[in-house]
């Protein structure tokens, strides 16, 4: 890199809500420093770039690429490969890129069912001919193509090599600034970089540590959905039967959600050493179900436990809200045509 040239910054948006792009602004006046330090090389959200511009860059031209979004279709994957090739550092920015996030919840169903919902079976639709996307259509003028819509949503690192991860939905401002600082520091002052594959801007302790609510020994005899209960202030939400992923979720967010009475949803991903965040949370939650004991008949125990289990409406959606693509099973086995993972 020539001394007079500023490092190049890219940010790309694949399958995600776009909140991550906006979150960059959350670093407030630091954005000016970013502007000072970096040249923007590719940032479709804020400036007009074309893919061909990127293709024209030499390899590793971009210093750091903040990639947000999951890999939903062939275009996402193609862009991931392209930007990987052109970037020195590929950062999985936000939960979608890191572990699939909300888009990956569609892994619980089939492509067909997703299409049905989006293009056919939806009250706000007007699609009398039942037209659904096809990768290639011949029209009078010739052939039209669109990217292939994948069956399974993947995280960024399931298609390209990723240098750093920034979890969060979206990542918290100090975290964003931290990762940029690290790279800038390395580039400008030669400070050592964290090892490749590091998850940046998180702690190594679960959210509960940062949460001020009072926690007690847990015995939960029913679970509540958020609308079913007004939480008692000051008391651990999980203790009150409100699903809170805090115990199974990596800290660093300062327990934002629990502190305003909403259970942690798990966006910072699993703790180090955990292979599957959802399974671990499921295990923890089931362990403290206050039903059944060793003096009861088996059928009675089962009935009691079942009653509590019945109050957890959607375990897969709850425990894998952010980590479906990174989970052990990654998706549902879909039988039949309704697209539900029905055994």
């Amino acid at each position, binding site marked *: 890199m020539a001394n007079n040239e500023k490092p190049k910054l890219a940010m790309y948006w694949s399958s995600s809500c776009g909140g991550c792009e906006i979150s960059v602004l959350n670093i407030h006046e630091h954005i000016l420093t970013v502007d000072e330090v970096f040249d923007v090389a590719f940032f479709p959200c804020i400036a007009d770039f074309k893919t061909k511009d990127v293709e024209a860059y030499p390899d590793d031209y971009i210093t750091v690429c903040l990639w947000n979004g999951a890999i939903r279709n062939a275009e996402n994957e193609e862009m991931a490969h392209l930007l990987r090739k052109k970037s020195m550092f590929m950062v999985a920015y936000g939960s979608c890129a890191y572990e699939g996030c909300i888009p990956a919840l569609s892994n619980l169903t089939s492509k067909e069912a997703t299409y049905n919902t989006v293009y056919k079976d939806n009250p706000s639709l007007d699609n009398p001919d039942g037209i659904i996307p096809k990768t290639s259509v011949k029209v009078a003028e010739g052939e039209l193509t669109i990217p292939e819509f994948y069956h399974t949503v993947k995280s960024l690192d399931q298609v390209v090599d990723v240098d750093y991860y920034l979890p969060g939905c979206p990542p918290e401002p100090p975290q964003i600034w931290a990762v940029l600082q690290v790279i800038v520091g390395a580039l400008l002052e030669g400070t050592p970089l964290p090892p490749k594959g590091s998850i940046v801007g998180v702690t190594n302790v679960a959210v*509960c540590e940062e949460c001020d609510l009072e926690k007690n020994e847990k015995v939960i005899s029913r679970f509540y959905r958020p609308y079913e209960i007004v939480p008692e202030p000051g008391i651990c939400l999980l203790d009150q039967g409100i699903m809170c992923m805090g115990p*199974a979720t990596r800290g660093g967010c300062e327990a934002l959600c629990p502190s305003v009475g909403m259970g942690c949803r798990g966006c910072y991903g699993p*703790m180090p050493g955990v292979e599957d965040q959802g399974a*671990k949370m499921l295990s923890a939650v089931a*362990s403290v179900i206050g039903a059944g004991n060793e003096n009861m008949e088996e059928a009675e125990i089962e009935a009691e436990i079942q009653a509590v289990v019945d109050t957890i409406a959607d375990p897969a959606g709850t425990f894998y809200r952010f980590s479906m693509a990174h989970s052990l099973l990654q998706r549902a086995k879909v039988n039949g045509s309704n697209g539900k993972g029905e055994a």
Partner: protein
Amino acid sequence: MSEKKHPDNKERVGVYVCHCGTNISKVVDVEEVARWAGEQPNVEVSRDYKFMCSSLGQELIEQDIKEKGLTRVVCASCSPHMHEKTFRTACERGGLNPFLFEMTNIREHDSWITDDKEAATIKAKSLVRGSIDRVVHHEPLDQIPVEINPNTLVVGGGIAGITSALELADAGYHVYLVEREPSIGGHMAQLDKTFPTLDCSACILTPKMVDVGQHDNITLLTWSEVEQVDGFLGNFTITVRKKARYVNEEHCTGCGICIEKCPFNVVDDIFEAGMGTRKVIYRPFPQAVPKYPVIDKENCVYFQKGKCKACEIFCPTEPNSIDFEQEDEILQIEVGNIILATGYDLFDVKRIPQYGYGKLENVFTSLEFERMVNAAGPTDGKIVLRDQETKPKSVAIVHCVGSRDENYHKYCSKVCCMYSLKFAHLVHERIPDAEIYDCYIDMRTPGKGYEEFYNRLLEEGTHFIRGKVAEITDAARIPEEEGKLIVQVEDTLIGRQRRVPVDMVILSPAMEAREGSKEVSQLFKMGCDFDGFFIERHPKLDPVATMTDGILIAGACQGPKDVPESVSQGAAAAARVAGLISRGTVMMEPVRASIDQDACSGCRICNNMCPYNAIIFHEEENVSEVITALCQGCGTCVAACPSSVITGAHFTNDQLLSQIEGILWDMRPEKVTA
């Protein structure tokens, strides 16, 4: 044998595949498994051998550790319950930490369950690969030393508990013997004669009871119950409630004048099995140990109505031994080991209405009959009907009342055949012209001198009817049956229904677990089976130990047992404890959980996971901690921890996840032909 060096090996694993003579090799292709194992990652050497557990087999392992610098060892042979210890010791001799060893069970779980050689060999490979992948993640561990408090708690003062207490006390160790009744002695004290020798039960038991009462090394706590058990092997703290006797044990001489003068009699449901009465201030029986009486508060006129005090008035001691103000005492005892000898209950025969007990007055239970034939019992040993005078001319004895019965207890109560025979003998002896009908399903007399006793009864003229009694009724069908109890039974030897009219019926009820044994097992944090009997560590090889270290069981609390067996178990449990005490410290398996304090978020999910209360929460630091000494290593908290910051030593996530991967080595997509 095959040897191969992998340059990128992290560890140097030795794999040993045992033929077990032909036990394994006749189904599993052990040579192939060994050859194949040599090709697996991290494997330095792999061999097959005729008998790995032989000293030569063990030497192979030792040698390879020394010469080839093995860092891990896998042995594919029998169940770890059989030889894990053997091979761990071999590793240790070779200079390898014993926990860097893993055993693969290709005998009980493989070669013995199928004759499909191909499938068995594939399975053996999978299991071996699982072990290889697991053992790489093993960590050296040290056994945990625990100091043993030389005092012992014995719960239950029946013959098993008495034996345990005396054995230990005679060996010079202090024993606390806790009994909930006012006297020790248990069921044996109620019996008249013991089979098959017909020794007088009291004559052989009483001296032992006296020994217990007088022994310097025994603190006898009767009329007392254990309320709480804290701690673990070597260091238990026991809370005992010593119920108020209302008699001061320091002043009382046991003269018995108070009992004599007490004006009120009540039915004695416990010792006399309802056959006799006792005073309200009482000793269960004359030879009771200790000799001090107890006031039965519920029936005492002074306690209920505020008047009487006859006992106090007549008590000759100075100061007076009667103390109406006495209160329950709570004692704390420190012990290193616990022996449970809590005995059994008799099956409630009223649960079988067709046997008529309670409705037909001359139907008796075995215990009632024991009291009746006992010379010191309510009828002075005379065999009479409920009217206390008529001698029965015919007696039926019914076996298996509640035992070997789908509706009640499926198990055999083991002692009933023998004591039923004893009853038959006693009736013959005391009423020589009486006809005795003994209705049994199968006659079970396995024991020294037992079958001979049965033969003796055959000689004595007992009528044996092989068949389960259907009912006992007073509904006569023919004039000869009028006024009799009719025993309806299918005599399976002659293939006919019989109706046997008799004057008296004795039911031999099942021995069942003590009421509340489940609660007791929880109190002591040990296992208890469906029937309520305590579970031994191993049904054959470790019958007096339990899964909880430091807690032993003896006698009928573990399952139906006769006197000699209870005595053997009592002594065996004592010997086990004495061995531990003399060692001073014991080494415990290091399979224990621990929490990474730096990574614990204090979520408190694990806090009520532990049945041993080994997990404590530090409010200040906001972290939980496992007390290693209390932890039994089940791993339930490890599975529960949502942060995976609890590690279960020797069963870590890494080890188990790698084993899963290894065990499925042939299921990877590239290998599967779907």
